[in-house]
């Protein structure tokens, strides 16, 4: 096995152990939360103890927690993500329908936020534009402190209600029955506002980290040396500073992507975007243990993959970081 193969195998084993530990911890933490699915399913209006007991027996919730845990883990090893008590379906069948809307929104949003955030930081730093730097920094601070839920509503008020440029919510115009390209165009039309909101929320992080990283690089000895030997500013920037400064935002990008499955839950609620985030919040409120655990499991896998990929990309960008 070559160097890279060994690295990958080690990381995958570590990730599997980590995921197992995370799931064990999740299992017990979730069961510690007050309230149980059977009581919530019967609701405040019908909380008959007979019904609650019947539901607990039906779904095995009356078993000792350790027995439930063994059953959960053995099912997981067999590739069974569990059964949703609330929806009476396999957790995977519920997740499957929600994964595409979430991934298209969050991955596109994160990639755009990364590109624009990093580009803005480099552009402003390169130009040494004090005024531009101040303006972008102030905006980025404001956006960083803005709750996504609130920003989403403001976007709706401006672009949907005032200007009528974009629809308020959903994925498609339900009064029309578009097909083919028109349907894709309708989808993009609906995607724009949630995407823009997510991008504006994430962009400040990439902007600020890149900016700080560039400023840090300017203080490094190699910059002083290279400047002294007369290297052009453009060459210095492109060949050395940007390459070094890109590592921290790249790491953050990896983490952001890892959380992509559920990170946009509030934006999904505001724009009624039918994604995983909403499914997760709903599962938490209803204490749908198996569904919550299934979503967390996918999240853990996604984060692990994203982190491994980040390590690989980082090593490619900066050969000083070895794959060990």
């Amino acid at each position, binding site marked *: 096995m070559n160097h890279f193969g060994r690295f990958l195998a080690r990381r995958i084993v570590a990730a599997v152990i980590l995921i197992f530990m995370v799931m064990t911890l999740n299992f017990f933490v979730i069961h510690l*939360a*007050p*309230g*149980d699915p059977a*009581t*919530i*399913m*019967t*609701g*405040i*209006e*019908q*909380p*008959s*103890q*007979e*019904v609650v007991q*019947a*539901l607990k027996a*039906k779904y095995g919730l009356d078993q000792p927690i350790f027995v439930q845990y063994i059953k959960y883990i053995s099912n997981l090893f067999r590739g069974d993500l569990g059964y949703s008590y*609330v*929806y*009476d*379906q396999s957790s995977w069948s*519920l997740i499957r*329908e*929600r994964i595409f*809307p979430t991934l298209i929104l969050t991955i596109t949003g994160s990639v755009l936020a990364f590109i624009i955030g990093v580009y803005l930081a480099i552009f402003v730093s390169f130009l040494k534009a004090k005024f531009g730097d101040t303006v972008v920094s102030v905006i980025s601070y404001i956006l960083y402190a803005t709750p996504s839920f609130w920003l989403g*509503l403001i976007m*709706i*008020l401006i672009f*949907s*209600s005032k200007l*009528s440029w974009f*629809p*308020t*919510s*959903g*994925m*498609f115009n*339900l*009064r029309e029955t578009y097909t083919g390209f028109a349907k894709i165009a309708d989808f993009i039309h609906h995607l724009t506002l949630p995407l823009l909101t997510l991008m504006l929320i994430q962009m400040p992080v990439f902007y600020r980290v890149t900016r700080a990283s560039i400023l840090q690089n300017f203080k490094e000895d190699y910059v002083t040396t290279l400047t002294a030997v007369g290297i052009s500013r453009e060459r210095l920037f492109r060949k050395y500073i940007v390459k070094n400064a890109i590592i921290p935002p790249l790491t953050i990008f990896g983490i952001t992507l890892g959380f992509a499955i559920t990170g946009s839950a509030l934006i999904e*609620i*505001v*724009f*009624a*975007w*039918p*994604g995983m985030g*909403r*499914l997760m919040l*709903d599962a938490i*409120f*209803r*204490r749908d243990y198996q569904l919550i655990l299934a979503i967390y499991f996918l999240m853990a896998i996604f984060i692990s993959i994203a982190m491994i990929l980040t390590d690989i990309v980082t090593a490619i960008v900066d050969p000083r970081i070895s794959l060990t």
Partner: protein
Amino acid sequence: MKKCFAFLLVVVLSVVLLAGGTPKKGGTFIIAHWGDPISFNPDAKVDDAGSGIYGCIFSKLITLDADYNVIPDLAESWEVSEDGLTYTFHLRKGVKWHDGYPFTSADVAWTLNQIRTHKEAPAWKNLVDVENIETPDEYTVVIKLSRPYAPFLGFLAWYGTWIMPQHLYDITENGSPVDWLSNPHNQNPVGTGPFKFVEWVKGDHVTVEKNPDYFLGEPYVDKIVFKILPDENTALQAFLNGEVDYDGNVSNAQISILKRIPGVVVKMKPAPSRYYIAFNIGGRESPFHDKKVRFAVAYALNRKEIFDKAIKYGEVAEGFYTPAIPWAYNPNAKMPEYNPQLAEKLLDEAGYPRQADGYRFEAVLVYFQGQEWRDMATVIKEQLDKVGIKVKLEEYEIAAYIEKVLKAKDFDITELDGFQGPDPDNLKLRVGSDGDINVMGYSNEEVDTLLQKAGELSDIKERAEYYFKVQEILSQDLPMYVIGEVASRNVHKDYVKGLPYELTGVVGYNNYAKVWLDK
């Protein structure tokens, strides 16, 4: 025959007049709906989001209209035997399931038996007195009860009693019966209702199309789309921007905005649900075990102010049962009127004098998340502070709330609301000694006996006397203090006509068969 024709003519004319003009056919009616159903098995579990949609796809034996009257649905008429034990239902002839299969009495018997044998079914408890169900012919259903139970019809018409297709559910796989919770038709329902199921894009929308063979006549609109909009602000904007025609996710705070907008109809109706505070009487140690302290709180509270600041829409409550079901409402059993001086006197008498810090004791007010609950709690805290009761507010999400209040009884005061219909027999749940929603832990033998007897009588006047007496006792014991009557809200564009709230006596409360779009 003549009489029958005249009656039909009157019904048709009233429908046309009430709905405002001659109905037009066609169009898509879009409703902003707050949440996804959990499935399309309408009887299996408590599913408030689903129940708003089921009325389009399924029918019941009998149903409730928007004024909580029992009206015909699949049964066009029924009789109750003298002894109150036998209910005979005569079904409509020629009704078909959406897949073309004929509907018969066997479907009714099968459905009700499924509910009786599944404890997780929300209507299970309402059918415990059913001894057996017979089907002497395809169009007759005879239900025998083990004891006379007058509220039976109301509960049969209310929740979780939709008639399901036996031919699609009573099936086996590998020799074993398929559990009704995992039947594939729970995702692809087949009913006898005014609309046929088309698609359910989870988290996004549910679409149904008109059933031309519907027994009350072909619906006017071609399609209904329930657009899932969990956030009330987004729902409002979607409604104002013309993306939806009916806003089914309106908050109290939005009502005043909506009332000012031309082309928008805001219709409020009294609903049998009320905001009240419940005292801890039978749970852990609490000053509210003492009746004097409960009365002191009632005298210290100004419910008009609480209502105006926190609830805003509906009515200030006066009595101990909902006036939305007028025959059972006792107007003479009233809440104590605001009198803070008397409150202070009672607290002194109860042995809670003001301490050096000015307070008499501290009480924990527990409530669950929601703006009106928070506002109510804040005003109550402020008002009780004035008579020397220091209130500590504790807000919980609903699951934790159920655990703390309903299970552990770990509170002094809590805030609640909830449906109190379709029959006053529901009072048993809230004030009966073993009532499932008796959070107070209130127990009064006389109340239990009166409620029990009232349920066994069939004469409405006699029943009312018992309920009036119960309310009198409640006004003396004061296990709860009622603040406001909830109003049900219908918010839609003015071109939407024939909604269920306009057609009481004709269609069920969530049946959109007569909706039409005047545009």
